């Protein structure tokens, strides 16, 4: 096949003016679709005094009420069962069911039509092609094929591109590694946590060095931040001898962001399929200036069964106006998703990002990939406990390691930590989404 850098050379290189015109056209279409077909959406918009004919500019879009996960939950469990009034197609047109992982509470049900499912795989094909996936690749998917959307659409996109697509579903980690070796898989998709865990199992339990004995040269990470945290990316790339790319998405939204093969240290927003808006997490005021942090409010412009219109993703991102050397005109977000608005919390009056802690921990040789952060309160004083694991065979004395760790933590996060050290293998291991950050203050507050 001719070397084509873009899955869609038309959409991915549109001028900013043409892109915004397309977004506005699509927003008007999906807004009208939802307004006319769903009581949930119509009542929401009528309460704000907005009808489809009122949407003509981006300024008008900002007046459209946002949707939060809790609102979706409140309509579910009713007719048309189980989706309730947010459903915009007859039930018989729903061909796919998935649900959110429920890590932040009760899961949200997600219906999709056949058209939506094609759209999902098109979003994924865009990102996989941008990361260098081509028909000659053998793509291994080591995830549990079940009710969570996870890498399902990645599977279908890989097929659509023409890759040989290998479902590594109900296999344990060792069996997955051996199958990847046997088939000489060239690419895979998993959470950063699991990718690191697999490398560990390969080396320690199977005596396989992934850089020499496996053929994986591209890894697409999703499900949690990590692939754009420099120290984590470096660890994964060194462990696998592969290029690691980040991707951002969510069940209710779709696959909205991706890192391209140029690895610009940022995510592209797929702006032909999504409208991304940003707001100050505290005030809700629009954020447009490059360099500023904002909470992502996002619209899936073509998803029809259960539309996602101005959804409050809770993802914190940093805006950029830099152009990527890949030539795509899609906007970049520096460092990808930096954390959840719920997790980026103030400790001792300072904003604490779990991603910043991870970057420090994984930059220290002699510490394992695992860690835990516990934020608590003693009296009126916030405390942060960081639990880390020491790798076996490290020659550097523990006191010296801890000194380096504390110094880096203070430099990168402006906070002091109580560091607890554990032997290798003591901290919990995760296969899908890790829960390494625990704010015990919230738990206490809810009990008071």
């Amino acid at each position, binding site marked *: *096949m*001719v070397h*084509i850098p*873009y*899955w*869609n*050379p*038309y*959409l991915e290189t549109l001028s900013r003016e043409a892109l915004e015109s397309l977004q506005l056209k699509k927003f008007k279409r999906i807004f009208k679709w939802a307004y006319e077909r769903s009581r949930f959406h119509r009542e929401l918009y009528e309460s704000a005094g907005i009808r489809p004919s009122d949407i003509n500019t981006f300024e008008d879009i900002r007046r459209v009420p946002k949707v939060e996960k809790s609102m979706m939950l409140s309509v579910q469990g009713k007719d048309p069962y189980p989706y309730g009034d947010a459903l915009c197609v007859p039930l018989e047109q729903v061909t796919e069911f998935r649900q959110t992982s429920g890590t932040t509470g009760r899961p949200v049900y997600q219906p999709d039509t056949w058209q939506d499912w094609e759209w999902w795989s*098109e979003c994924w*094909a*865009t990102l996989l*092609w941008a990361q260098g996936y081509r028909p000659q690749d053998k793509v291994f998917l080591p995830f549990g094929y079940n009710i969570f959307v996870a890498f399902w659409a990645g599977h279908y996109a890989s097929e*659509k*591109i*023409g890759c040989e697509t290998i479902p590594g579903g109900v296999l344990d980690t060792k069996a997955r590694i051996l199958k990847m070796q046997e088939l000489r898989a060239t690419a895979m998709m998993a959470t950063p946590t699991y990718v690191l865990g697999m490398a560990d199992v390969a080396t320690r339990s199977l005596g396989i060095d992934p850089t020499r004995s496996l053929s994986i040269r591209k890894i697409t990470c999703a499900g949690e931040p990590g692939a754009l945290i420099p120290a984590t990316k470096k660890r994964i790339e060194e462990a696998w001898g592969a290029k690691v790319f980040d991707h951002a998405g969510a069940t209710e939204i779709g696959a909205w962001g991706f890192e391209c093969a140029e690895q610009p240290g940022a995510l592209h927003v797929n702006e032909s399929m999504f409208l991304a808006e940003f707001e100050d997490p505290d005030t809700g005021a629009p954020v447009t200036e490059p360099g500023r942090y904002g909470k992502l409010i996002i619209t899936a412009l073509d998803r029809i069964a259960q539309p996602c219109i101005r959804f409050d993703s809770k993802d914190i991102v940093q805006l950029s106006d830099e152009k990527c050397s890949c030539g795509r005109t899609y906007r970049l977000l520096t460092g990808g998703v930096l954390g959840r608005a719920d997790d980026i919390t103030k400790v001792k009056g300072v904003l604490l990002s779990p991603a910043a802690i991870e970057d420090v921990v994984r930059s220290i040789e002699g510490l394992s990939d695992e860690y835990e952060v516990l934020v608590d309160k003693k009296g009126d004083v916030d405390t942060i406990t960081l639990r880390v694991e020491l790798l076996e065979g490290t020659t550097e004395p523990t006191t010296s390691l801890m000194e380096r760790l504390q110094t880096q933590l203070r430099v990168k996060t402006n906070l002091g930590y109580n560091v607890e050290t554990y032997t290798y293998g003591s901290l919990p291991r995760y296969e899908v989404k890790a829960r390494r950050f625990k704010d015990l203050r919230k738990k206490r507050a809810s009990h008071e």
Partner: protein
Amino acid sequence: MNNQFRREQFLDAVLEMERLAEKISEDSKSFPAIERNIKRIQASIVMMKLNLGG
């Protein structure tokens, strides 16, 4: 329902789709999002032909 009549109608339509798909496939080598999607449509067209006894 006259199945034989409908079969001929369907077959004509499917063959027309096949011709159009072939042309799009040839013209879209530098546009993966079209070229790879038309390949899937071509696979569906083959199934429709088989379903019509082709």
